[in-house]
């Protein structure tokens, strides 16, 4: 059997999801014996930027016309397009305030030069092209990436938790930061899959994996208000990694 052809791409972001791939130190050399990585600019200087791909893994959000163009050309080449990480799936931190006056923000950061730049409000991949699989996380979990490659090699679709971080906390018997400590913890509406990493370290969940399916933010809002937080602070916290509306 021919090895499936794979491309790994970064739009605008921190390169964290590509870094998670390179952080698979124990699996990296086995991984490249199973898949044929043709296009991976971050790790190789010999890339075929035109060939058809069985799988394209794309991280980062679309923040420029150039990003959108690049994404469309990747989509044309790929049988399966995978959005890798919260920026690609939801928009990520750059999308937290995307209703704001962009010209003003550009001026604040870059002065008069700013508004000249090729710059658009952050968009997730699904807002521009069809996405076949979402692997969320900021960054993605190593196991989710490796598992997805295993699944795709076997012709299966990976399955990710459709329950909130709270469920993982309960399974780990972690004390509740919201109810017992009155902290602004986003666990109740955030997609699980991280083994409740932060609450387990007694740090409130910031929602970096994006909303869980069927999230109930209004009930969380009431719980937060009961603990004395104001609506503005709550709304800002809940939208740090994902604007309203999403890929589901």
């Amino acid at each position, binding site marked *: 059997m021919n090895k499936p052809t794979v491309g790994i791409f970064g739009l605008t972001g921190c390169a964290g999801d590509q870094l998670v791939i390179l952080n698979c130190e124990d699996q990296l050399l086995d991984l490249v014996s199973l898949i044929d990585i043709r296009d991976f600019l971050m790790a190789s200087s010999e890339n075929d930027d035109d060939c058809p791909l069985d799988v394209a893994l794309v991280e980062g959000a679309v923040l420029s016309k150039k990003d959108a163009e690049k994404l469309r050309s990747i989509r044309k080449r790929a049988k399966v397009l995978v959005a890798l990480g919260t920026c690609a799936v939801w928009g990520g931190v750059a999308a937290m*305030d995307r209703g704001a006056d962009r010209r003003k923000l550009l001026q604040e950061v870059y002065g008069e030069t700013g508004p000249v730049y090729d710059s658009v409000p952050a968009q997730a991949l699904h807002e521009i092209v069809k996405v076949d699989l979402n692997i969320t996380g900021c960054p993605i979990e190593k196991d989710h990436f490796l598992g997805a490659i295993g699944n795709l090699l076997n012709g299966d679709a990976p399955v990710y938790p459709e329950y909130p971080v709270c469920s993982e906390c309960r399974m780990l018997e972690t004390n509740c930061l919201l109810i017992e400590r009155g902290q602004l913890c986003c666990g109740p509406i955030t997609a699980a899959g991280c083994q409740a990493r932060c609450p387990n370290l007694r740090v409130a969940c910031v929602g970096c994996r994006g909303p869980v399916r069927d999230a109930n933010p209004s009930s969380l809002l009431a719980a937060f208000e009961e603990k004395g937080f104001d609506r503005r602070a709550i709304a800002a916290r809940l939208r740090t990694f994902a604007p309203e509306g999403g890929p589901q």
Partner: protein
Amino acid sequence: MKTVVIEHLARVEGHGGITVELEGRTIGKVRFDVFEGARLLESLVRGKRYDEVAPILSRICSICSAAHSLTSLKATENAFGVKISPQAELLRELLYLGESIESHALHIFLLAVPDYLDFPSAIALAADKPDAVLLGLRLKKLGNLIQETIGGRAVHPVNVVPGGFGSTPTLDQLIELRNALAEGMKATNAVIELVGSLPPADFCHCETAYAALLSPNRGSYYAGDEVVVASNGNRSTLQAADYRKLANEQSVLHSHAKHSSFHGKPFMVGSLARLTVNPQRLPARWRYRWIASS
């Protein structure tokens, strides 16, 4: 005149391209262009609650996410006049060093060495020199183990918070880390031998200014209060709090990355700069080799 454009540089941390103007065989202007989209995080953190800022700013870059988190926390703690415990200082320093180990191993073995040995990637290099690549991956993994143990995650640490840490590592975790570090020390010696055996880069060397935090005696690059700019034997010292004198950012049309200069000239930061400013931090046997080679 001829213009050479490399739109996307491969094997770099981040995105960038280079434009070179050639007059015959003479190089004229060289421009480094970063056209990554503008995320405007500087503006987006305004109005956020004090504990929301570090997790946002860590996302500036994954490879140096610990440094971005720690710098942001330091600023937040300074604003509140909060002094963290000596234990928290030490743990943060360890986290930062873990990041340096990971980032340097990544840079050397996965990004830079393939060029020295004429391979397109570390993956291709592994077919020919598996030991060298495995050595690099082992060291890289050690840096990540430190970051996972102290920071709670290898990329974008979650355990560092204003005032200190969410949780401190357990004794068992620290013993595991100590054993891994003892093994890592052996790997480091092998890495220095290997890097020392690489053919020297043959591009021209021009006078460069290097800027880095001056490392206080106990050897931290995290806790320094002074910045030294070293150029051709001259050293100028600035207080770290006056960083704007050095990071006097100017926007340019050809790149989304701002430019900074010191007395009108560009300067270099990073590992070479840290070594240039702090050679005394190297163990004696490596210090002599470093001084002889620079």
